[in-house]
């Protein structure tokens, strides 16, 4: 049997005040059995708003708990329930894709220096955390180098850990640019080992050294049939352009490379363009002329011609999610046959550059990063990267993996594209780098333990022998209060 008085109301009553003296003096058993509600009278009070509330008619001011209600018609939907405002179309996706680069609740890290042009080349800077200058942050944001999955949003300022692989890659990029050669390299490695972050660092280095940067943030946007495409008229074999995507790309290039473009002017006449752009007009004018998707591909070709003309700064062409552009795309030809990704004009431009067919005359780098989280199965690419990696390992040249003779899904075009690339395999960071990173976390106020050798090695082990993303998960993203 349930008590007649609501327990919550009982707790609110203070017996010394709420129960009048005459009730308390009637100390018989019968009196104690009477529900308090029936014996309740208003005490003297000058202020309380609660006491001034309208009394319940039946219960003398105390809430009598309702018994079990039998709800009839339980299958009828309660249409009057207020569910709040539904998010506007696209709002959820915008929230999901939101990139937050700064957090005022995080502590500013004392002694955190900004990256300068030469910092990423100095081997002494291995295992240091340096912050990205604000101007470069804007450029990186314009070229969509930041990813929503990276947790920039818990720190005061975007900062990066310079690991030994970073220094190595930047040195190679610098060497290639100096000799007017093109570094063609694929960054690969396990899940969340920092492949996209390495691309970001390469872009940072390029921006700091006034390179021109062209970035395709996600390979899948080009090949999963989510953007419009059309056959390029007069091309044989038929190539396809993606005008909307290219328009967006031109705008991103323009915005990110504004500083460099403002100093450059065109060296070619472009008679095919609808807008007349004479030789010697600023490059920004050419970039700005892309206003509509209709002629975006034409303008992109003109822009590319200008960027690869002699005497330009080095060029960095980067793409993340390589597996998506190394397979047959989801687009269909007019004959309803699947189009190979390499027949898409923009992808073709990247793949030819990567394979070495279209070298940059001013030097530079073509970087691609594989992805482990979002990557379709591409046996050819996997095999090619494994082969290149084995070939580039100094000692074990004899142990190059061979194609499976009983598998016929290999793709000749992919094989050709990846025949001569370099492969940089990322794995876990060293203990020293882990320590530096954790000290940065602690200085930012989000890691609330003492950073000593024990803590570092523990997180290093929990993160699968120093996989950065896993360390982050183990240390920052798991609530441990």
């Amino acid at each position, binding site marked *: 049997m349930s008590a007649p008085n609501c327990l919550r109301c009982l707790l609110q009553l203070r017996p010394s005040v709420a129960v009048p003296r005459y009730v308390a003096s009637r100390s018989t058993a019968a009196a104690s059995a009477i529900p308090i509600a029936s014996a309740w009278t208003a005490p003297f009070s000058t202020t309380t708003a609660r006491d001034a509330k309208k009394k319940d008619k039946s219960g003398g001011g105390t809430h009598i708990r309702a018994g079990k209600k039998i709800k009839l018609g339980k299958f009828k939907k309660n249409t009057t329930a207020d569910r709040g405002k539904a998010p506007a179309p696209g709002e959820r996706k915008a929230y999901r894709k939101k990139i937050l680069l700064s957090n005022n609740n995080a502590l500013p890290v004392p002694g955190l220096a900004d990256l300068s042009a030469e910092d990423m080349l100095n081997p002494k800077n291995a295992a240091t955390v340096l912050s990205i200058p604000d101007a470069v942050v804007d450029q990186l944001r314009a070229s969509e180098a930041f990813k929503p999955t990276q947790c920039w949003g818990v720190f005061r300022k975007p900062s990066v850990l310079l690991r030994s692989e970073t220094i190595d890659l930047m040195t190679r990029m610098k060497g290639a640019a100096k000799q007017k050669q093109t570094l063609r390299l694929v960054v690969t490695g396990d899940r969340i080992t920092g492949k996209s972050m390495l691309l970001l660092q390469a872009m940072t280095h390029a921006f700091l050294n006034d390179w021109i940067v062209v970035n395709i943030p996600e390979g899948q946007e080009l090949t999963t049939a989510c953007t419009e495409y059309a056959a390029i008229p007069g091309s044989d074999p038929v190539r396809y352009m993606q005008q909307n995507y290219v328009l967006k790309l031109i705008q991103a290039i323009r915005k990110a490379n504004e500083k460099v473009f403002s100093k450059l002017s065109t060296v070619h006449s472009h008679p095919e363009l609808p807008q007349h752009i004479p030789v010697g007009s600023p490059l920004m004018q050419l970039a700005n002329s892309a206003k509509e998707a209709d002629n975006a591909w034409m303008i992109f070709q003109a822009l590319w011609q200008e960027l690869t003309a002699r005497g330009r700064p080095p060029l960095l062409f980067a793409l993340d999610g390589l597996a998506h552009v190394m397979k047959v795309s989801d687009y269909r030809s007019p004959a309803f046959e699947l189009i190979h990704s390499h027949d898409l004009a923009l992808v073709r431009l990247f793949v030819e550059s990567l394979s070495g067919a279209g070298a940059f005359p001013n030097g530079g780098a073509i970087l691609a990063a594989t992805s482990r989280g979002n990557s379709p199965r591409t046996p050819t690419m996997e095999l090619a990267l494994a082969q290149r990696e084995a070939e580039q390992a100094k000692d074990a040249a004899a142990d190059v993996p061979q194609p499976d003779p009983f598998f016929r899904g290999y793709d000749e075009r992919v094989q050709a594209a990846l025949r001569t690339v370099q492969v940089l395999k990322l794995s876990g960071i060293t*203990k020293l780098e882990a320590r530096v990173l954790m000290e940065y976390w602690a200085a930012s106020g989000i890691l609330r333990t003492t950073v000593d050798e024990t803590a570092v090695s*523990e997180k290093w*082990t*929990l993160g699968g*022998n120093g*996989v950065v993303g896993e360390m982050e998960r*183990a240390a920052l993203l798991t609530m441990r209060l």
Partner: protein
Amino acid sequence: MAALRQNITGALRGSCPGARLQWQTLDQQFHALRLGSGSGSSSSSITAAARSSSASASTSRCMSTDTHNDNSDSSSQTGFRSITAAPETAIRIVSHARPVPVSPSYFSRQPIFNDSYLTLQKLMRSYGNLPVVPAGQVERVAWNTLEDIRQTLGEQVKASDYAKCIELVKRLHAIHPTLKPEAVTEALQAFKRNVQPFSNVPNPIVVDKFGRALGVGRRKVSVARAWVVEGTGEVQVNGKSLADAFGRVHDRESAVWPLRATSRVDKYNVWALVEGGGTTGQAEALTLAIAKALMAHEPALKPALRRAGCVTRDPRRVERKKHGRVKARKMPTWVKR
């Protein structure tokens, strides 16, 4: 000299002199009976028997078989003579032989128990002065309980008697093993339980010549083998890194918990193989495996590991489904009709 021979003979026959007398008497009576019933028997055989009673026992023993061969012609000559009783012999015939029980406590209520108790007392009198091992170092033995003894002997042993007896047993057991006489060991054997739980000692884990210690752990249906070597904190599970093997951070922490609880994460490398069960089971099987291997390297860590909960195997398993229920405990949904 003759007396000595007689003694030896008696010993060979397995009887005392009194018993020999009795034996002869019975022999004679037996032959007398044969004479009375059969016709071919002769007085000479009786006389021979009478003569042989004073001779050596071996002669008298073979007499019953040799009689016919030796005295066949004499019996045919004396066949017509009347039967006469055998002449009086000088031997005193004992009519009753009282069997004496071997055990002195034969007539008590619990003879077997009393016998062993007396044996123990006797041993105690003889060897009570031998040096004993300190109390903590005595080999642990599970003795038969009072119930066991009552069951096996089938005697109603008193608890107080048992207590006294087992006290003696323990005192005798404490005699230093190098000096302990064989008799004591034999006497105590009867009091030992058939199955000795203390002798069921697991094989100690050793660190092999490569510096590896192999520990095996189980949890639910998972079995983990972990090879622990001194190192820098690298962990590989089934050829994968810890992060690849366990997606959940909690599981990773459980797996390396013995190292973490003793702050040895950066001192050892672990190479492990796990099979069976799910992720939680595998992770916690690893806990036990790593803890055991770690104890091989550093036995002094055992209390710390026990406090961290890494020493005892978790015996919980999936509860079986019962009839009349949907799962182990869940009752079927109530329906009105």
